[in-house]
């Protein structure tokens, strides 16, 4: 039995806009300390689900709990535990950066003596300390996104709810965002985010849920989902054995790692690239790597093929035009 408790628990969530069911019987758990990625095409119900969790929408039916507290009966307590960043940043351009953060620090009831330190720390964390006295309207898109993230962190929430945080960012800003989210996870935050950018999610999410037309098509840890849906995870092992015939490698791998299926070997420069499918979780995958190295195979690369999430996504979401 796992010791990790659930930060967010959703059971049979339904929400309708008029006669249109935006979310229909959705249930999932977000484990504490995880990065949970909610994936789905436009109109799948991602934002509606996040808004219900953030107490901004009364669900038509179902239960949503944050650390055991219902959003319907303890909304104020939940708001203090959450940091919410909507898909539109919506900023007060006429304020200076520190004034903007000071406003939200006051909204969350931070005492005067702790506000300055909180503002300084969050600006340092998102690397915006140099812009402290600049006007919000003068910030670039990437800086605005980091400022919005700083706002969500001001009151030291335990859970961050980020709706499409990477939308509109250039590649550099996306990489910085990924690094920042990993850092926040390391600091103990639970992060629930939605995104269209599957490559980003595959790299940082420990858990995913795929929403399709209001239904949750699949959910679980990334490894579980890939195992369950894609018939396994595709692993790429790179060996520094240019002089070893591929046939010999396949035989050795078959003996050392019988769980590796459908192995194909190709030569890439001075390396042999072995691609195979496994149905293993992360610890078992680590054990496999240890076994290969211990057996004397010159492993120079061992990674999972990140595009698998795209396969899962495509398999579980229909075309926009039927």
């Amino acid at each position, binding site marked *: 039995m796992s010791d990790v408790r659930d930060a967010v628990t959703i059971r049979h969530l339904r929400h309708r806009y008029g006669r249109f069911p935006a979310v229909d019987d959705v249930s999932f758990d977000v484990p504490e300390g995880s990065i949970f990625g909610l994936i789905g095409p436009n109109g799948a119900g991602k934002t509606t689900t996040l*808004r219900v969790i*953030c*107490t*901004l*929408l*009364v669900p038509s039916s179902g239960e949503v709990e944050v650390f055991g507290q219902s*959003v*319907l*009966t303890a*909304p*104020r307590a939940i*708001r*203090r535990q*959450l940091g*919410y960043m*909507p898909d*539109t*940043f*919506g*900023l*007060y351009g*006429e*304020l200076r950066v520190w*004034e903007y953060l*000071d*406003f*939200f620090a*006051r*909204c*969350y*009831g931070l*005492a*005067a003596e702790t506000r300055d330190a909180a503002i300084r720390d969050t600006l340092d964390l998102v690397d915006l300390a140099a812009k402290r006295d600049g006007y919000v309207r003068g910030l670039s898109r990437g800086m605005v996104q980091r400022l919005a993230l700083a*706002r969500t962190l001001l009151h030291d929430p335990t859970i961050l709810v980020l709706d499409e945080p990477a939308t509109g960012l250039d590649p550099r800003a996306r990489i910085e965002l990924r690094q920042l989210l990993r850092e926040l996870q390391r600091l103990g935050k639970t992060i629930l985010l939605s995104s269209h950018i599957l490559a980003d999610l595959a790299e940082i999410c420990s858990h995913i849920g795929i929403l399709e037309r209001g239904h949750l098509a699949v959910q679980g840890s990334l490894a579980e989902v890939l195992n369950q849906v894609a018939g396994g995870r595709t692993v790429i092992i790179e060996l520094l054995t240019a002089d070893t015939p591929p046939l010999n490698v396949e035989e050795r791998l078959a003996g050392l790692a019988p769980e590796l299926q459908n192995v194909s070997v190709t030569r890439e420069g001075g390396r042999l690239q072995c691609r195979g499918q496994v149905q293993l979780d992360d610890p078992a995958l680590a054990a496999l790597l240890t076994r290969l190295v211990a057996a004397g195979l010159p492993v120079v690369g061992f990674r999972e093929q990140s595009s698998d999430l795209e396969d899962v996504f495509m398999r579980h979401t229909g075309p926009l035009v039927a």
Partner: protein
Amino acid sequence: MSIQLNPLIVRELRGGLRSGRRVVLLSCCLVIIGVVFLGVYAATSATLVSGSSGGSYAVGSAFFPMVVGVELFFVCVMTPAQTAGAIVNERERQTYDVLLATPLTPRQIVLGKLVSSLAYMVLVLVAAVPIESLAFLMGGVDPAELVLASLLLLGTLLFFGSFGLWASATFRGSRAATAVAYALCGLLTIGLPVLALFVAPLIGSIALSYPTLTDQPPPWLVYTGEMLAATNPWLTAALTEAQLRGGYPLFWMHQTLGKTNVDLPGVWLVFLALYAAGSAACLHAAAGAVRRRRVGT
């Protein structure tokens, strides 16, 4: 324990009042009040030349109602614009969800928005005090006149502001909210007096057919008439000025209309009661509208 100022007020004082447009608008208001003073001064300067103190009293007593009238005009014209956008603008600039996701209660949001929106109007009124005080230097103005004028201005400001805020919390677009806020302002300040102009002859002809109505009007009719008059800030100001200049008691007046004797509260009292009740109702409804946008309080 330190008392924390409402965050919305702090934000408005930092950001909103920094706008150059507002500085220009404030300057324009003061220039207009100054021009009114110069106009009154020029019109009554002949009496000043004679050197009698009555001349300066005449300037003071003529100027003060004029400046209050101008300020009331500013309040009626500018207040709906200030508050009708207060909440709906948050929605339009996509900051409303972030605001609602904080632990601020709907009441805190509404009161913060009201005070921060009206702060600018209060600034306009306060900035005019030095010019207003010229009337005191010249004499002819009773301190009670100043107190009542201030109450009248603040009552109008509060009610029109609260109604604008209700419209802002209720309607989805700033145009609709502003239109509705100005509609009520127009109805109370212009619509009802214009309607009265058309209805008065009709009532007069009906009254002629029923002599008892003029000989001995029922008290409820008298009270209703006063209440209708008290819905209009201009009429309230004019009647209160007449009450003060006529030397009548400020709070209760004994009136004899035909054979009917009634004790009427001062029209300014009725005005303040009506506008205070209206403001409370509007703010309550605005908080309800904010509450409906999210879960619980």
